């Protein structure tokens, strides 16, 4: 079974702090994704990566950056956290391919105060 592990289940940070969300997958998947989930808005893609050191902006990249130095690890960085970044953050991975399913972690609930 594919396992996608997000380092924290809950995080509370202060406005202006630099925040790192870490994600590790154990199945050698090429693709990795960061989504944020908000009620009524569904899952919105922040960034994704289809190879080591590669990154592509999703639909809502503003205020975020990412890092993928190793194939199994994909980090989401909030350079200066703001209250409107309070959300559930979901990491996912997949193999390349037309119908490859996304495998999600259980999410990190980030609260910025």
């Amino acid at each position, binding site marked *: 079974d594919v396992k996608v592990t997000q380092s924290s289940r809950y995080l509370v940070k202060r406005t202006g702090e630099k925040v790192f969300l870490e994600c590790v997958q154990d199945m050698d998947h090429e693709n990795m994704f960061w989504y944020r989930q908000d009620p009524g808005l569904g899952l919105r893609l922040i960034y994704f990566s289809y190879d080591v050191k590669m990154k592509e902006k999703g639909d809502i990249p503003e205020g975020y950056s990412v890092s993928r130095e190793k194939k199994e690890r994909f980090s989401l960085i909030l350079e200066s956290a703001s209250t409107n970044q309070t959300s559930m953050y979901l990491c996912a991975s997949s193999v390349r391919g037309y119908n490859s399913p996304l495998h999600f*972690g259980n999410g990190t609930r980030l609260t910025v105060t």
Partner: protein
Amino acid sequence: QQQVKQSPQSLIVQKGGIPIINCAYENTAFDYFPWYQQFPGKGPALLIAIRPDVSEKKEGRFTISFNKSAKQFSLHIMDSQPGDSATYFCAASSLFSGSARQLTFGSGTQLTVLP
């Protein structure tokens, strides 16, 4: 902008009922349409998916109906059970560049099946 529009936002049915969740899209570049199921405290997981050259796909009690000309697709859950209570997301996949693909999700439907 919401590229994949999903309705209703919430749905309550009795056990044995047939909840129906609808999705619509505009982008004709979408070429694969999965549904994901999410239980509280868990990430979404793939439930069932359909290609646009097929009008219906059934897996157990779950059926996707697809209308390419109307750019609409829907999920039907036959003989629904309390254990089906979850949030359901429709999604649409498109090619981003090379072989990389991007998945766009609907806003989600919170389904409650009453015992």
